[in-house]
């Protein structure tokens, strides 16, 4: 057993509240879990050494609320902002004016009705094999419960920001229950660059005909250790569109699970990772087609600079009775330097006989002819590279419906690409 995990298990104080039974069960599973090493398939290309060596500082600097606000806000988005710094909620949720049909509360003072809706989400979409998900089950004393009532179309985006500062080792959980026919736009954004080690897991249930436009901005960099997951259960005719934009840090891992629990559900997953310097980012996605007539379209693109290291593992699993499934998975990578590294593995596992599926992965360098063409029109080499990088992922960013978010991202990514330039 590993010291870090031991510390977690020893420190777990399962208080007697509405989540205790679930937490207790996860603690038992955790006690019987193996600490992953490089021989574990799910951690083959990602070393946990940084986490093993991490020193917890219980006096994490909480003065970074303002910086979290400054980095977090998105111009023109006019969202309902929910801000967490080092796992503590900074927003006075009770004072928020919420649209009809939208209910938000935190773990501590959730009304019974909210608790019941949250129990229908907690550990329903996140599989038990995520070790750090179990850690989060046990340790996340803070979290958000969001529920949207039947047939309510919530136009205002919900923007959840979590920031981690020096020495912080907090754990945060978000549970979202979208009732039948309801619609929502949710943006989750994480940042922090100081030495910290955090887990962040969100779970979503989309009931029949529910629709979610989801964005996850994994923007922890430098020394931050960030292990996170986004998990979705889709029931009949539910529609999910999710976009991930990720930077890398010394250890950054994101697991996405989409479970087709009902028929005719539709999942569109776009993910982009943009890695600079010696950053690391590991994306594992699993799509479970358990029911017939589902569709999945997953496009993952990465731009990997300098000595950065990207890991992508995308699995689509089509169960025996998931007939008429349409699923495709594509991963394309652009390597900006000879020292960069991409480990990509798309996987299709099909047990039904009447499905249409495709998968593929490529790793390529920037096209010299494209650069020459832009140069020959007076555009400098560094600007040309930014344009081509942005062009490579533009299609996926364009998939985001919210214009303000898209505009903000485009500016942000231009700046990002300049820092990624390899000289």
């Amino acid at each position: 057993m590993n010291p870090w995990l031991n510390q977690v298990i020893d420190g777990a104080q399962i208080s007697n509240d509405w989540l205790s039974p679930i937490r207790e069960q996860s603690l038992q599973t955790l006690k019987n879990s193996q600490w992953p090493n490089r021989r574990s398939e799910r951690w083959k290309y990602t070393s946990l050494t940084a986490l093993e060596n991490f020193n917890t500082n219980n006096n994490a600097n909480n003065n970074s609320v303002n910086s979290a606000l400054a980095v977090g806000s998105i111009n023109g988005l006019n969202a309902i902002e929910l801000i967490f710094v080092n796992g503590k909620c900074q927003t006075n949720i009770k004072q928020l004016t919420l649209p009809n049909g939208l209910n938000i509360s935190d773990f501590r003072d959730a009304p019974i009705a909210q608790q019941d809706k949250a129990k229908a989400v907690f550990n329903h979409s996140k599989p038990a094999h995520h070790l750090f998900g179990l850690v989060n089950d046990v340790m996340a004393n803070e979290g958000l419960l969001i529920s949207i009532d039947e047939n309510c179309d919530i136009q205002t985006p919900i923007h959840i920001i979590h920031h981690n500062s020096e020495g912080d080792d907090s754990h945060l959980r978000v549970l979202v229950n979208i009732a039948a026919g309801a619609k929502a736009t949710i943006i989750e954004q994480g940042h922090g660059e100081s030495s910290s080690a955090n887990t962040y897991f969100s779970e979503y249930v989309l009931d029949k005909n529910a629709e979610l436009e989801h964005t996850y901005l994994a923007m922890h960099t430098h020394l931050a250790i960030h292990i996170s997951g986004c998990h979705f259960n889709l029931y009949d005719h539910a529609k999910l569109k999710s976009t991930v934009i990720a930077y890398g840090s010394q250890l950054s891992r994101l697991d996405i699970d989409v479970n087709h629990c009902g028929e005719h559900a539709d999942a569109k997953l776009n993910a982009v990772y943009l890695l600079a310097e010696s950053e690391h980012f590991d994306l594992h996605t699993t799509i479970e087609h358990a029911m017939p007539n589902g569709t999945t379209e997953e496009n993952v693109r990465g731009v990997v600079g300098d000595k950065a290291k990207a890991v992508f593992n995308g699995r689509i699993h089509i169960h025996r009775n998931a007939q008429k499934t349409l699923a495709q998975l594509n991963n394309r990578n652009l390597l900006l330097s000879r020292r960069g590294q991409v480990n990509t593995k798309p996987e299709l596992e099909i047990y039904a006989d009447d499905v249409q599926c495709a998968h593929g992965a490529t790793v390529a360098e920037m096209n010299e002819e494209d650069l020459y063409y832009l140069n020959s029109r007076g555009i400098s080499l560094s600007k040309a590279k930014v344009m081509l990088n942005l062009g490579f992922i533009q299609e996926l960013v364009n998939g985001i419906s919210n214009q303000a978010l898209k505009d903000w991202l485009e500016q942000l990514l231009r700046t990002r690409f300049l820092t990624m330039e390899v000289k």
Partner: protein
Amino acid sequence: MLNVKNLHARVEDKSILNGLNLTIKPGEVHAIMGPNGAGKSTLGYTLSGREGYQVEQGSVDFNGENLVDMTIEERARKGLFLAFQYPVEIPGVSNMEFMKESVNAIREQQGESPLSAAEFLKAAKAACKQVQLPLDFLKRGVNEGFSGGEKKRNEIMQMILLKPKLCILDESDSGLDVDALQVVANGVNSQRDQQRSFIVITHYQRLLDYIEPDFVHILAHGEIVKSGDAELAKKVEKEGYAFLGLDDKEVNA
């Protein structure tokens, strides 16, 4: 404008230009013809500064400056423009954004302030109409899914917007039907003035019916073997290159 003296250039280990001389004054249109493999496209690429096109000997003076020492983008910013025979497709980068960056890079070099989005849009729309491309081509990825003819018109649109000093048209007529040929030729003719010069690389006299050259040069084995006026192009059209002692099929330079 341009003074090329004894230019020798190679691609990898193959010598392609072997002592080429060419002098172009402001406002002149020079047509360059010649058999396949004579070095016509290489001349365009070498002047544009393309990587891998190595100048071995000779000099190129462009408005009093040594062109050979400049980077690709410097040459463009100082007014050299190459309309490509096969323009690349760049999905994801919009034609509009590409041309705006390009126009503003060149304006910056010339000490002019960058065009605002609205000013550029106005200029781009006018240029787009002039080459008879639908306006939605501005929003599409650079050359993405364009037909051969549309790509050529897109090159001419860029030329109109960039207002270069020296335009090199590398077979801008190849693969065009008569209507598209006229659009391209009209685009070029609209830009002709006392200051702007053109090098028109072509296989066919046909284009020269529309863009009347001041001089016609025949390029073979990497050097100019004969120069004349428009009549020379007509003679080539009628008789092939045989009268120059050249095979008009493949020439292995």
